[in-house]
Structure formats: structure tokens, C-alpha cells
């Protein structure tokens, strides 16, 4: 319950999105906007989950398809495909997900520590599991995930 101690009684507002049948929650303050999937310009020799870059009002923003990255969900691109534009680590990054379901507030007592297995994500990026009625929301530290080495989004320090 490391987490519960750290952020005592602070309820947090989350944006919940779906990847396959799993529901993930991220800190809503990291979300800049939600938009449809546009044509991207693909980046040469980039990993397959990095779809490319888009022009977001004059900014070049990379788009990561989390469905490919975690190998869940149907990888199709149509008018329902959703891109969440995130502001993490002073960067703007877009992630492709299966859908955005809702915004909800989770209080600390609704959070449980994640077990050491059970998700497509490395548990290092999982802050906890939230229970809302019958649903389980996987709380993701999206900043840590996006800046991690295996996302290949950020230049490694040594390079």
C-alpha cells in the first residue's frame, strides 16, 4: 500500500480508456485533448507501434499506438479510432487507444496495489488497481511509461 500512504486521502480524477477489454486510467491533468485519428507521416526505421507524426496546430507530435505496443485490441484505423494527446515530461505525445469511456474520480480507499502479473504493462508503470462497482481500472503512470526506454520516444540519455 505504498501508494495509499504516499497520496493520503487524495482522490484523483482519471481519464479512463479501453485497450481491448481492459480499462486503464490516467491522470486527467496529463491529458491535453482527445481527437480522431488523422493521417500520420510515418517515421523511417521507427518501431512499429510508433505510427508516425502529425501536425497538431503547427507542432510535430508523435503518435504511439498502445494497442500495437501491448498487443491487445483490434488494430484498425477508422473514424472511431481515438487519439489522446498527452502532455508528459514537457512533451506532447499522442496515444492511440480503442476508446475513451469516461472521466471518474477514484478515492484512495478504492485503490489496491497491483499484483506482480496480470497486465500487458510492466507493473513498474502501474500505480494501482481501482475498483468501481464491477469494473477494474488499471491506474497507469503515463509519464513514466511514455518516457521509458522501451517506448523509444525519448532520446536515451547516453546516446
Amino acid at each position, binding site marked *: 500500500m505504498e501508494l495509499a500512504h504516499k497520496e493520503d486521502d487524495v482522490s484523483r480524477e482519471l481519464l479512463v480508456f479501453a485497450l481491448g477489454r481492459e480499462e486503464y486510467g490516467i491522470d486527467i491533468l496529463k491529458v491535453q485533448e482527445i481527437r480522431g485519428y488523422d493521417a500520420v507521416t*510515418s517515421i523511417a526505421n521507427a518501431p512499429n507501434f510508433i505510427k508516425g507524426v502529425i501536425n497538431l496546430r503547427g507542432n510535430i507530435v508523435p503518435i504511439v499506438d498502445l494497442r500495437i505496443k501491448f498487443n491487445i485490441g483490434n488494430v484498425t484505423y477508422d473514424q472511431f479510432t481515438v487519439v489522446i494527446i498527452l502532455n508528459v515530461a514537457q512533451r*506532447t505525445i499522442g496515444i492511440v487507444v480503442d476508446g475513451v469511456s469516461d472521466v471518474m474520480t477514484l478515492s484512495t480507499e478504492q485503490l489496491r496495489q497491483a499484483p506482480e502479473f496480470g497486465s500487458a504493462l510492466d507493473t513498474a508503470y502501474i500505480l494501482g488497481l481501482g475498483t468501481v462497482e464491477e469494473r477494474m481500472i488499471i491506474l497507469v503512470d503515463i509519464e513514466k511509461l511514455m518516457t521509458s526506454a522501451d517506448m523509444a520516444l525519448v*532520446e536515451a540519455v547516453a546516446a
Partner: protein
Amino acid sequence: MSIDMSQFIAVYFDEAAEHLANMESLLLELDVGSPDPEDLNAIFRAAHSIKGGAATFGFADLAEVTHVLENLLDRVRKQEITLTAAMVDIFLRAGDVLKDMLAAHRDNAPVDTAPIAEITAQLNQLSSEQVLPVANPQQALTVIIAAGEGFEHDVLCHELQRHGELEDFSPGDAQTPWRFRLKTASSQAKLIDAMAFLLDPARISIEVTGQQDEDFGLFAPLPLPATDLSVDEGFGFFDPLPATAAPALQDGEGYGFFAPPAQPVTEQGGEGYGFFVPVAGSNTPAGVATKPVEAKPSAVRASSERQAERGGDTSIRVSVEKVDQLLNLVGELVITQSMLAQNALQLDPVTHERLLAGVAQLERNTRELQESVMSIRMMPISFVFNRYPRLVRDLAGKLNKQVELRMIGENTELDKGFIEKLSDPLTHLVRNSLDHGIEAPEVRLSRNKPAQGTLTLKAFHQGGNIVIEVSDDGAGLNREKILAKARERGLNVHDNMSDNEVWMLIFEAGFSTAAEVTDVSGRGVGMDVVRKNIQAMGGRVEIQSMTGVGSTMSIRLPLTLAILDGMSISASDELYIIPLTFIIESLQPRAADIKTMAGRGTVINVRGEYLPLIALYDIFSLTARKTSYEEGLVIILEAEGQKVALFVDDLLGQHQVVVKNLETNYRRVSGVAGATIMGDGHVAFILDVAALVKMAQQVTPAEQIAELV
């Protein structure tokens, strides 16, 4: 009132900084053997102006240091003492100390007193060294105590005897003055000081007797005679000389004349402010008060000329952020404009004639606007270069080398962003050249070179680049040493590496062949940083070197970060931009011209020249659309002196594009220099031609060697 004052102080700081910079550059240009009197005057004036302001604004410490400095300078310029290189060094250091003090005062930070004391001591030592031998041999003086109240003249006699030999003494009374004749080596100021215990200094006057020049000799201050009335500039009169005695015409009123030094004379005539900045122990005779007015304009002229040279006279200060914002907006405008232009092409030119004319007009205006905004960011490279004369001078002195610094193309303009980032790497290269490149004078002579080495800083435009070269005529890089060092460090090297490859080794981290680490360079933490810095600016470092002849380090930077002319090309489904400056030509290849070599690389024969042929879809792992070379186009590119042929599907057109940094939100992609937004709102990548050329070389080194044989 206080607000007003702070405004003036800010102006004073700016001016003082300018005076200091002026002084430094003049000092550096000074020919120690035969200094130009005009330069000496200008240096003196600079010091004087700083001192004046310092005293006005109550920076006593500043005033004190400049005061001592000024005295020395004054005597140098009057040729009372000869200028030596050591003196110039101390003057320069004094300038540094003053700079620090100014900065401290500006930030309201505590002033570090240690260097001040040190430099003051050095300056004082200089002046005493120079003075004592020349100055006062025994001089015959008459001390006159104005008639009036009596005093203990026995004690006075005793006091005077301590300073010299009392020869004669005639007592006075309420009507007749007392007169003491004595032979002494002490200065008048000292005497007055000594007597000040006993009676009002205002009553004391001192005459020099037995000196040839009766009139002026009277007032000649002993250590620092300021009596040379024939100097028409008249500036020297008001120099605060510690021991200045007052001219006779003021004898009567006499207040404060013989004020002990360090007590400023503040009650000057009403109009005297500014010129007669109260300075320790200075006495400004009202009778000659108009003279400095002449000197003032000349000082002003000198500094304004200098400003005109730098072109900084009618400028305003704007924060870089504002300019960048402007630049961004213009960038957006360019994109919008090209979007409009693209859509307008689809309109019927007859029915929409006026709209199309408007679009064309917009294009022109946008381009001009863009150019003007770009030019705001451009600054002459002299902003960087100007610091090197000093650096080179100091370093050369430290290393006991003789070096002449030549600077060429200081007016070459480049982006302000570069100016700031350039100084560190460039400083490093300059230091390296001085430390490792240029040999000690004896070594140079033994190699039939002039004892004085030459270091050249050169900036010029080449194509779309700005090239900055640091070259020396020193020893050059040592191939064997570098190779040996590389092996020692476990790098993968072999003996038949080309010179260029060997030179590039010195950019590896932790690489230094300096036999011994000096505090100048040799720690090997530098060249790799230099390369990293330059690369971060989108530039490149190249080395040319020849053993015994010298070496040249060239930094190549793009003209600007923001906008470039490019050719758009298509490969597979993608659209790329190639900077126009790298493109030599494009041609439709014939199957007969394309040869494969050793089953690996492909070369193309372009008018008898075999160039490595690379396909863009190979490099970027795209699906090839064209099955044979004849269906597409070949673009001949040149970067870093290497040519390659790039195979693409098609040429689309020429654009001016706004360069967007990919690393803002993503990371560096090899082969891609940046991204841009096309007229339709899509993102297109800008190719990094130099990286492509390198990629091509990695594929085909064996073939190229085979070709040569």
C-alpha cells in the same frame, strides 16, 4: 528622486561596461613599444569616465581602483613612465576586476574585496616602482604658514626634521607668515599630512625653492607633476593626483585645498558637476574649469565612432522570446499562405483573376516579412570573435608562446541562437590550437618557421552554410600518436585508415594526446563536447591537418535554424524534403550507367564519375514502388565534399519550408534533419543529407577502394 537615480545608475552601468570593453580592446591593440598617443588618451578617458560615474553614484571602491589606474594611465600617456607589457597585463587585469565590481554593484551583490586589494596593490607598486628612482631627489622647499594665530613651532620643527633637513626658520606672528626651509625627499602631501596635526592645513602652503621653474614649480606636486600647461587638452589638470597642490590664484580662499587625501572636495562652483566629480584628494581649480569641456566631446566622439562600427547605435533591446514568437507566427503564416496558394491553383484563372493576383501578392509579402523577421535574429560573428584577442593574449603569455591572432570575416552574420552556443566550442578549439598546435618559439625557429605563430579565425558563407575556421600554423596533428592512443583506449583502428578518419578520432570521448595535462587543455574532455555542441546546432566539425604545417578546424553551421529552401521528392508513399543547398543535379538514370559492385553496393556513372547509388527506400525501409532504376530519378547530392546519388521516385517541386524540430516531442531520427508542415497540413521530413552520405559510405567503402585501384 530615488527612481531617477536608479535609472541613471543603470545607464552608468551600461556606459561603464562599454568603457571597459573599449579600454580592453584598445589595450590589446596597443603596440607596447611605440603606443599611439591617441589610443593612450582614449584608454585614459575610458578609465576617467568610469571613475567619474563611480564617484557620483557613490561606488567608492570602484572610484578608488579606477583612480589608481587612471593615475598610472595618465603618466603613461604623458610619457612620464614607459609602457611595458607587464603594465598592460596589469591594466587588463584591473579591467577584469572593475568588470566584476560593476557586476556585483549591479546585482547588489557583495563585492569580493580580495582581488581589488590585490590589483590596487599591484597598481600602486607599479606607480611607486616607476616613480621613486625618477622622482624626488632631495628638494628644497619652503613651508609657509599663513599669518595668524601662533602655534607650537618647536613641535612643527621637530616634525619637519623627521622628513628632512631643516635649513632655515623664520618665525612669524599675526601679520607675518612663518617660513621653514627644508631639504626633503618627502612629498608635499606627506608634509602637509604631518603638519595637519598641529594646525589648520588651510594655512599651510609649500613652495619649491631652488628649482629652475619658479612659476610652475611652486605648485608642482612632487611625485606626479601635473604642471605641463602646454598640453592643450588640459585634462591632466584635474586628475586627482594624491599630492596635487593648488595653484596660487586660489591661495586666498583656500578652503579644502590641502584637504588630506581621500577627503573629496565637494563644494565646487555650481556648474562644476559632472566634470569635477569629487575624487579622493583632487582639487579642481575653478579658473581652468572650462578646459575639460573640450576633452569631453572627444571622448564621446570616440565611443560613438566605435558604436557605429559595431552598428549598435540605434538599436533596441528585445527579448529573444519575443523574436522567436514572431518567427513562429511568421512560420505559421508561411504555411497558411502556401496552403492558400495551393488551393488557388485549382481555381479558374479567368474568373478568379483578382483573387489569384491577391494570392500572388500575399506570397511576395509573406516572403519579405519572413526575411525581415529572420534578419532580426542575425548578428555578426564579431560578437563571438571579440573575446578571442584577450583570450589568445593571456594564453600565449601563460604558455610562453608568441601568437598573432588574425580574424577574417567578422561581419559574417549568423543566427543569434548560434552566437551564444558557438562561443564555448570555439573557445575550446582556440585553446587547443594555442596549447597543442602552435609550438614554442624555440621549436618553431628550429623548424624554420617564424617564432611568432599565427592563429586565424575566419568566418564565411559557403552555400547554405556558415563556415567558421580556426587554423594555426603549428605542428599539426600527429597521426601516429592518435592511432597509438586510440589503440590504447581500445578503439577499433587500423593503419590504413584515411587521415580524415584518424583526425575524427580526437572527437572520441576522453581522447587526449597531450603528453601532459595543462590547465589550458589536455584533459580530453573537450573535443567530444565540441562535436556534440556543434551537432546539436545542426552543424559539423571537420579537421584538416598536415604535420609540421598546421591544422584547420572548420565548423559548418546551417545559415539559420528556422527556414530553408527545399525540393520535395516522393519515395514510396512518403514525401520528403531535401535542402536545396545539397542538391547538385537530378537526372534520369540509364540502365547502362548503373553497375553493381561485388554484389553489394551499386554505383552510377555520371559523366565518367562513379558515384555510390543509394535508394531512399532502402535507407528508410520503405516498400519500393519502382522496380527498376529507369522508372525513377536520381538526385546527385553533395555533403562534406562527398557526392552520392540518391534514387527517388519523383521530384515534386520546390518549396520554402519552416523547419520544425523533431526532438521537441520525439527524438533524433537518423537521416532526418527535421520536419516541416506542407501546404496541405501534412508533416514531411527534411532529409539530413550529410547523414545520408555517411550511410552510403558505410555500405560501400570496399567498392570505393576497388574503384581507385
